[in-house]
């Protein structure tokens, strides 16, 4: 939190000193009020989400996190319409959605981290000035592109390509009683998330690389390091806090992404089978966040509403933990850097 200390005020006001101080007081008061309002707002949203989602947890206990007899989509459907006999239905086993979130986010991070790091090194250290000046704004634009654009690109352009080129028809026929294999699947979800988060990571990594003191690099070169060794041993080490912060920020965006993944991951809360080999990545999933958008039309059912808010609780906890974890990790990395 920002604190306003005396030196901020012009020590020798030319004229109207008293009124400037009063203006300061008002300014400070307004800022405090705004921050307090934001804090109260965030606190009430958190309390509200927990309150509405609680019945879903309390009805299912720890099995909320497990797998159930009925597929998740059927459970969500029953919680909206009632079970086949028309009775209230509160069972929920959310593992398929949790797994979907883990798979897409994890895959995208594994794919985008090396890619982003190497791109950042190229842009910040190796690229000719004019090329870097050209690439910089492109990365920023890509990082700020609304996710629905990536979703549309995925479903309209990439999905047909995957459908026609990667899915053998005989395997699709064999598996079709269990699940419909289409171009939208885990792989497409990972690809679209990678497209979304890699530019974000590149931008943060490149900024950090540029901030590494030239003296350090020159020192390494003077000691006989070649450029690659200098990058590896000096630059990358120096930006470790930024690597942690950038990756966590990207992870937060990936975990919470709803719209693009709703379009890209195949729209079934399926549990991909690791025994299917590379087909594992061609099977559909539905993530926590995209379940919320996909089913949001059904909020009038209290059971479904509790289930979707419970998904929200998990997302809130995850992103909060990520943010706090990133702060701690990046501080630890900074400390180590300062000490070594």
């Amino acid at each position, binding site marked *: 939190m920002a604190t306003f200390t005396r030196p901020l005020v012009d020590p020798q006001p030319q004229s109207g000193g008293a009124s400037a101080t009063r203006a300061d007081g008002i300014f400070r008061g307004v800022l405090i009020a705004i921050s307090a309002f934001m804090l109260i707002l965030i606190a009430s949203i958190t309390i509200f989400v927990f309150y509405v989602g609680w019945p879903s947890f309390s009805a299912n206990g720890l099995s909320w996190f497990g797998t159930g007899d009925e597929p998740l989509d059927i459970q969500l459907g029953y919680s*909206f319409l009632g079970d086949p006999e028309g009775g209230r239905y509160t069972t929920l086993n959310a593992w398929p959605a949790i797994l979907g979130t883990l798979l897409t986010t994890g895959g995208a991070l594994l794919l985008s981290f090396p890619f982003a790091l190497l791109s950042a090194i190229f842009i910040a250290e190796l690229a000719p000035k004019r090329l870097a000046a050209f690439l910089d704004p492109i990365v920023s634009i890509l990082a700020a592109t609304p996710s629905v654009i990536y979703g549309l690109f995925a479903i309209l352009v990439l999905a047909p390509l995957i459908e026609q080129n990667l899915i053998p028809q005989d395997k699709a026929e064999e598996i079709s009683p269990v699940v*419909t294999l289409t171009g939208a699947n885990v792989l497409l979800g990972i690809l679209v998330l990678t497209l979304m988060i890699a530019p974000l990571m590149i931008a943060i990594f490149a900024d950090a690389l540029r901030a590494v003191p030239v003296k350090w690099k020159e020192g390494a070169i003077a000691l006989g390091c070649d450029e690659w060794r200098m990058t590896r041993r000096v630059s990358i080490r120096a930006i470790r806090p930024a690597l942690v912060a950038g990756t966590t920020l990207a992870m937060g965006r990936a975990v919470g992404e709803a719209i693009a993944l709703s379009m890209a991951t195949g729209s*079934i809360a399926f549990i991909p089978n690791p025994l299917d080999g590379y087909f594992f990545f061609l099977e559909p999933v539905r993530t926590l966040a995209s379940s919320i*958008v*996909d*089913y949001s039309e059904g909020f*009038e*059912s209290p059971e479904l509403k509790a289930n979707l808010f419970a998904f929200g609780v998990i997302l809130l906890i995850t992103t909060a933990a990520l943010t706090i974890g990133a702060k701690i990790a990046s501080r630890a990395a900074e400390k180590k850097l300062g000490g070594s």
Partner: protein
Amino acid sequence: MKKQILILAVTMAALAAFAGTATAATKIITGGSTGLQVLGSALAAQYGKETGGKYRVTVSGGGSGAGQTGAANGTFQIGNSSSDKSSSTPAGTVFTPITKEPFAIIVNKSNPIKGLTGEQVKQIFLGQITNWKDVGWAAGGAIKCFSRVSTSGTRQSFQKLFLGNINTPVSNSCPALASNALDRSSVANTKGGIAYVTYAYTVGSGGATVKTIPIDGVTPTLQNVVSNKYKYWNCQYFVTKGEPAGDVKTYIDWVRSSKGAAVIKNYAVPFTGTYDQCVS
């Protein structure tokens, strides 16, 4: 300073103008089903015109469920719903049918089949038939069925019309997509694709990207619903809290009159029967 006065004056004038329109017309707030949004807006515009601007009907989206809840809690004076009453429908709501809307089965344009029977559609979407060779396309390969999320009014109506019960779920092997439009583009992009959509999605340039097939030998057209040949249709409703009354009743009566029918017949089949006739 002059500029500030000018801005102030303009703002005041705008506010006055806004207040003027607000008092001049009586507002009727409607909303809900996205499937009814286009028709609802057309009806609203025509009603405003015919009453000389005395009434202003607003139409917003949110889904059939939101329409039903909104009618019950007063957000909407009229809630739009494309689906019948369900166990989630708030008590005390009255459903007034205004149209019959055909439901169609669409397949990829490369699909050579001439049509399906209602029973075949049922078996496909229950996951009992999974290969095109079983319904007349030897080289078709896997049937790739596309469905909607279970909160969708379109899905509920499909389950009622083709699977026999609103609570009989479509096979979980079919991807449950978030909109009619996504279903259509998935079928357009997938060789073995099949999906159910409302009539509106089978016409126009979008409708031309897929093939609409006859069911039991009858093509889903408005004409075939009027003549009772095509039996896979569902009613669309205006939902009110209690029986319609006052300005709302006047509007609903107008929609159900020949004047309203003249607008409706461009989008669906006008229907002035009772709720029971819709669900029986």
